[in-house]
């Protein structure tokens, strides 16, 4: 699965099948601080994602 993280900006590739909330735990990201988009559509913590998906993790914390 290809993941684009907005802050700190990076792109990673990992093996993952399961719920978004478990993906965030795996990446050690607090769910309060991000929203997740799949193909430019927002999905929830309870939705499933798989290896074929391209995911964007957007930061909700303001920058200044």
């Amino acid at each position, binding site marked *: 699965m290809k993941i684009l993280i*907005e*802050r700190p900006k990076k792109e990673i590739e990992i093996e993952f099948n399961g719920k978004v909330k478990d993906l965030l735990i795996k990446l050690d990201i*607090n*769910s*309060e*601080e*991000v*929203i997740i*988009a799949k193909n430019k*559509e*927002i*999905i*929830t*913590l*309870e*939705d499933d994602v798989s290896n074929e998906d391209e995911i964007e993790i*957007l*930061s*909700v*914390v*303001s*920058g*200044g």
Partner: protein
Amino acid sequence: MKCSKCSNNAVFTNPTLCKEHFIEYFETKVKDTIKQNNMIQKQEKVCVAASGGKDSITTLYLLHKFGYNVEALAVDEGIEGYRDHTLAFLKDFCEEKGIILHIKSYQEEVGKRLDTVVPKGRPACNICGTFRRHLLNKYTQDYDKIATGHNLDDESQAVLMNLLKAQINLFARQGPKTKQIKGFTQKIKPLYLMKEKEIMTYSYIKGFNTPYNECPYAKDSYRAHVRDLLNSIESKNPGTKINLINKYLSIREGFSQDKEIRFCEVCNSPCSSQICKACRLKKQVKAV
């Protein structure tokens, strides 16, 4: 996951709603916050303190959408590679929506850009914030209210910080609407009860595309600790932030605004001493 009100896919949990129902929920809640706190009367002139970030853009967009008489005021601190981007976005946004935008810069007002006064990586928020508050108040004297984009996250962090630092006297200054004090334009916070995550979701659905970039100056690291702490408690115990705010609001009336207000001998701004902090800092900055 499905929306709790229809069969479409949800974009948010707690409350679990699809795009359309989330927008409805969000806008209704902001409208109710404005009404319940008696924030704006229809004939009043409101100035939104706008930075071009998602919070102030959402505030501006909604007040305009709700039909209030609203203009925007932005402060250009002069921070290369940061404010330049957000201001460019703000200009386009206001032009598209037909909202009048005023921009005041430190260069014009103080004589220097922030990035020529403070080297990158050094803390700048104290002087930056002092000048910003000073300019916002100075240039909103003809308005009835200043609206800011402060949200539930900002406000619950502030309450917790005041508790941790035992600065209980600051309690009187916070809340969804500041008290009426001579010389100060009254401040309102329409997004007071909205979580940062909700605002981000709303802006994303609305396609605001506010540029994400971070101020290059060293931030208030204490606030960052408090934010991380609150977020980690909230994700395990949802409702922590709003409970903290509700508790605070229930005792807020017991705290009174501290010192007597005086007026600065140099610029006549309201302050607590002979010369206001902005004028004192201005003098130091000129000497740099």
